[in-house]
């Protein structure tokens, strides 16, 4: 495998983006930030790949307008996944592995506030028997949380602890939509939103976009003294059906974790849009108690659809660049109740990332 590193990252997250659902107005400045970080122009980018959803944008081919944000004259080597930024990055990583290109810029965007998100996401379900019932995202997550509570795998206090830590950490993140920790007791005294979930157990509806820059070998070393080398990236999917899988587990996360080396990980950025999902993920990843979880505040405080998973990779990479940690794991999820999961290990050295 070629050594490939994350060398650039830019993000925007906000409660309500005052612009088009294709987010071109957000992408142009994001690309500018990536060029500034790398010293490149768009002609230095060998491959482009984006992630977005037509249903979120309320139109077909929503990514077509987004491509215009690149400035594609002359034409570019470009692809798109109807998935989160993390999977767009995976496609770019593959492209670099073939040796066809040495660099890539991947991006994703979504304006969740343009519709009623929990209702839009009901259209992701099995269309013949489930969608007609319109089970919304929050209710499905509520069922998942309840399953774990009833099984004695976690309690409401553990969920509140996740929320309190996330809200406290979010105070230092300029992009977090919801922030301000208090105490576990105070959070538990708040009213139920979708029993057993309180509002702070659910990620806020967030608009946003993000971009990640990848480079291989010396191209990465030219950009940064401490590139965040990708030690391994792996992803799996579980069946969707809520009735046939154990909602308190995430086998696809466990499988992805087994395919990479998590030994010595100091920090984890986990894409858990609901507090109890972080508990599931920590268990499936087998993270030690001293691993720092979601210093960014995580998806619980800001969850822009289709970029929030990739933002976890960017947040982890930034902490490698700065020297704060030497090895980190980032995770992204997609689909209802943690159906599909990706795990990416980052390290400060090419050996350290994969060992």
């Amino acid at each position, binding site marked *: *495998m*070629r050594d490939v590193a994350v060398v650039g990252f830019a993000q925007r997250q906000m409660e309500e983006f005052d612009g*088009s659902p294709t987010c071109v107005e957000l992408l142009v400045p994001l690309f500018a930030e990536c060029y500034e970080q790398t010293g490149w122009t768009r002609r230095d980018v060998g491959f*482009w790949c984006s992630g977005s*959803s*037509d*249903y979120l944008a*309320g*139109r*077909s*081919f929503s*990514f*077509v*307008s987004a*491509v*215009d944000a690149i*400035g*594609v*004259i*002359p*034409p*570019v*080597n*470009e*692809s*798109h*996944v*109807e*998935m989160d930024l993390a999977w767009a990055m*995976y*496609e770019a990583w*593959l*492209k670099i*592995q*073939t*040796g*066809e290109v040495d660099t890539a810029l991947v991006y994703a965007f979504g304006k969740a506030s343009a519709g009623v998100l929990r209702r*839009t*996401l009901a*259209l*992701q379900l*099995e*269309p*013949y028997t*489930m969608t007609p019932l319109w089970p919304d995202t929050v209710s499905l997550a509520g069922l998942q949380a309840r399953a774990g509570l009833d099984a004695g795998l976690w309690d409401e206090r553990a969920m509140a602890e996740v929320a309190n830590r996330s809200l406290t950490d979010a105070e230092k993140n300029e992009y977090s939509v919801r922030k301000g920790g208090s105490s576990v007791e105070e959070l538990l005294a708040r009213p139920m939103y979708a029993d057993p979930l309180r509002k702070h157990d659910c990620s806020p509806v967030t608009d946003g976009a993000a971009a990640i820059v990848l480079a291989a070998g010396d191209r990465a070393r030219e950009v940064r003294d401490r590139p965040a080398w990708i030690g391994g990236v*792996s992803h*799996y*999917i*579980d*069946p*969707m*059906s809520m009735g046939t899988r154990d909602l308190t587990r995430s*086998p*696809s996360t466990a*499988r992805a974790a087994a395919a990479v080396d998590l030994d010595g990980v100091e920090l984890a950025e986990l894409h858990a849009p609901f507090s109890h999902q972080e508990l599931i993920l920590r268990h499936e990843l087998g993270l030690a108690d001293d691993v720092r979880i979601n210093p960014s505040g995580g998806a619980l405080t800001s969850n822009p659809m289709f970029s929030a998973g990739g933002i976890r990779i960017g947040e982890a990479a930034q902490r490698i660049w700065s020297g704060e940690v030497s090895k980190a794991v980032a995770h992204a999820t*997609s*689909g*209802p109740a943690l*159906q*599909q999961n990706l795990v990416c290990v980052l390290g400060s050295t090419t050996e350290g990332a994969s060992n």
Partner: protein
Amino acid sequence: MTKQPAAVVGVGQTHHRAKREDVSMAGLCREAIDRALEDAGMTLDEIDAIVVGKAPDLFEGVMMPELFLAEALGAAGKPLLRVHTAGSVGGSTAIVASLLVQAGVHRKVLTVAYEKQSESNAMWALSVPLPFNMPVHAGAGGYFAPHVRSYIRRSNAPTHVGAIVAAKDRQNALRNPYAHLKNPDTTVESVLASQMLWDPIRYDETCPSSDGACALVIVSEDVAAASPNPAWIHGTVMRSEATTAAERDQVNPQASRDAAAALWKQAGITNPLEEIDAAEIYVPFSWFEPMWLESLGFAEENGGGWRLTESGGTAMDGVLPVNCSGGVLSSNPIGASGMLRFGEAALQVRGAAGEHQVDGARRALGHAYGGGSQFFAMWVVGAEKPSN
């Protein structure tokens, strides 16, 4: 590390129809998948990863349908990717699947692309009003008709060339058991007598709306050794250009020319007309055959394309047989149409195209485009292992 060789060892497709009411979306995909696996002599259990492609989700009314399909497609417990790059998506999806092998990550990859247009209404899905965008209100034919008129004007093409393409592809479709349209009586005269829809595009010069799917099994060199007739991937390319720009040439887009140049270079081809034995080119409206022939470098610009078509050069027995399967003009399950082109090219070099086989085909082109002619995906497959 360099690029690992990859080959197509299984090709499967559905019987394409206007409405496949006998199957669900999952059933439609499985029909293609099961045929591809049978062709490859493999079971679903052996597959390492699955790549799904389709055009806009609004075409069926399900957001990211691969999530609910995961289990039916055999993807549960495996990696699954979902590609969406407009009309070129079937081709792009095959390319992403081949990347998984070429990158050395997986050895046996299954890819499937589909469209079940009868679940929804494609015309509606493409007509959602957008702020600050000029409404077309004319479907794809209305969008492309000015490009065709421009080509005819530039190249001084006789107006019956489009009809030659339509009659040829409909006759070719009679040799393809999976084709949607089976119109044995279609001739150049009958095409010219059909209703004018978007001048100069007549009814018989347009593609149908189809339900259908296509699946490919793409494997590494060691796995391909067990196949009697692998189609080796000699080159893949994707290019995109701007949707709206004053300097855009929609008749012969730069992204198309750039893609072709990069593809021929990768595949070590210097004279495509001589070195390619069969081509499956994305032709949703008849006139795009001569237009793409020029853009791809098979013929001189501004007239070489229509002369090649008019001379019979693109017929089954011509110098460059184009769309022996009947092409998009005979079957158009949008998301799958590009993969059908890629898969039909593979069938040709495997000697497995049945009644529409080109004798002795050794190298073939699979081509797809999408959007308003700004997205391109292409590959070259060959009977021999690539030397580069």
